């Protein structure tokens, strides 16, 4: 499928743009690709780009004390990507954003998107809706992190996104769930998913 058609499909789940609106919205995206393990945003930078993933796997992560690393989000086709909070607020990112495999994207800049949001109410509504659903996901994950046992977190992840076991290296999944890699392996061997 044409990359822009993929993008149009994706956003149509939250907002249908008319042809005129789609024409201006589709014009702000440029193709971009890079190798695996490319750091696209460093902590301390302000995220300048919004990415739409066409191929590959990426993650955003935080480096804590004792080199404890927290993977906060994975992205893969078809979804938006980048450091969302830094992008939307145009403040400094606390997170690194990197590709885990060779990746292809469409991407745009904050300035271009901001311009369109100012000029077109429907595009602003679309961005608001996408942000709202992202917020919903973050809050749900917050509950899982605070209230769930390692096994419950593991089950919940597999129920929500069973395909991630195939595409994401398990050490990163363990980091995402905040459980020990050894515990993760044990759960993988013992937990039955209906």
């Amino acid at each position, binding site marked *: 499928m044409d990359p822009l058609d993929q993008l149009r499909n994706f956003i149509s789940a939250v907002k249908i743009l008319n042809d005129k609106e789609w024409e201006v919205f589709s014009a702000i995206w440029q193709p971009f690709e890079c190798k695996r393990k490319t*750091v*696209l*945003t460093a902590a301390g*930078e302000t995220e300048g780009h919004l990415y739409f993933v066409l191929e590959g796997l990426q993650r955003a992560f935080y*480096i804590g004390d004792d*080199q404890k690393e927290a993977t906060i989000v994975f992205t893969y086709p078809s979804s938006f990507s980048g450091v969302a909070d830094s992008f939307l607020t145009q403040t400094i990112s606390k997170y*690194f954003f990197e590709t885990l495999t060779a990746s292809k994207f469409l991407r745009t800049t904050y300035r271009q998107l901001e311009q369109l949001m100012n000029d077109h109410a429907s595009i602003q509504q679309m961005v608001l809706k996408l942000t709202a659903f992202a917020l919903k996901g973050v809050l749900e994950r917050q509950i899982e992190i605070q209230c769930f046992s390692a096994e419950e977190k593991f089950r919940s992840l597999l129920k929500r996104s069973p395909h991630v076991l195939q595409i994401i290296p398990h050490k990163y999944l363990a980091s995402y769930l905040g459980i020990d890699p050894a515990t993760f392996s044990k759960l993988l061997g013992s937990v039955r998913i209906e």
Partner: protein
Amino acid sequence: MKFNSNAILEELEAEVRQLILTASYLQKEDPELLLITPGVGKWSVIQILEHLNSYGRYYLPAIEKSLQSHKPPKENFTPGWFGNYFMRIMRPGADGKIRNKMTSPKDHRPPANPDIKPVMDNFMNQHQQLLNLLEMAKQKNIGATRTPISISRFIKLKVGDTFRFLIAHEQRHFVQIANTIHEIQGVTGKFQSALQAIQHSPVFSHD
């Protein structure tokens, strides 16, 4: 040999971010580790970082000055002879090892016991600034404006070459940092993988 100007600036940005990432792991290391010199006449990790800072204090303002030029960007960038030469002798080999030993000029030798925090803060600030300069450079002709090198004001590099040379110099010293930590205690896992990412970075395969 020529490169797409924008693509090479994007690659250099990714290299700098990799250095920031690696330094972030160092920042979370046991501070003691950063202060130990592995042998007589050898530098501690923090001394190596301060050595890099001393170059940044020269090159960042010099680059900023040459980016004041109003020449519009060109699609392609061809490295100059000197630029390529300096970059080649600086950067580690494709295997991530350093063969040609060099002696640092006197005025870039770090003090014996620098404090960790100011050195780290300075390193991080300089690298955010370097990212900003690379971003600015996308709007300029990086093959036209020239920056004098630190050891001789008579040798001037295209600003695109100055970026490549400066970053290759840093990568060289990050290999030294890894060797230093290895000599002290054996390299820890995460730092090792961050370092491998530097060694496999595109700058090393620019031939």
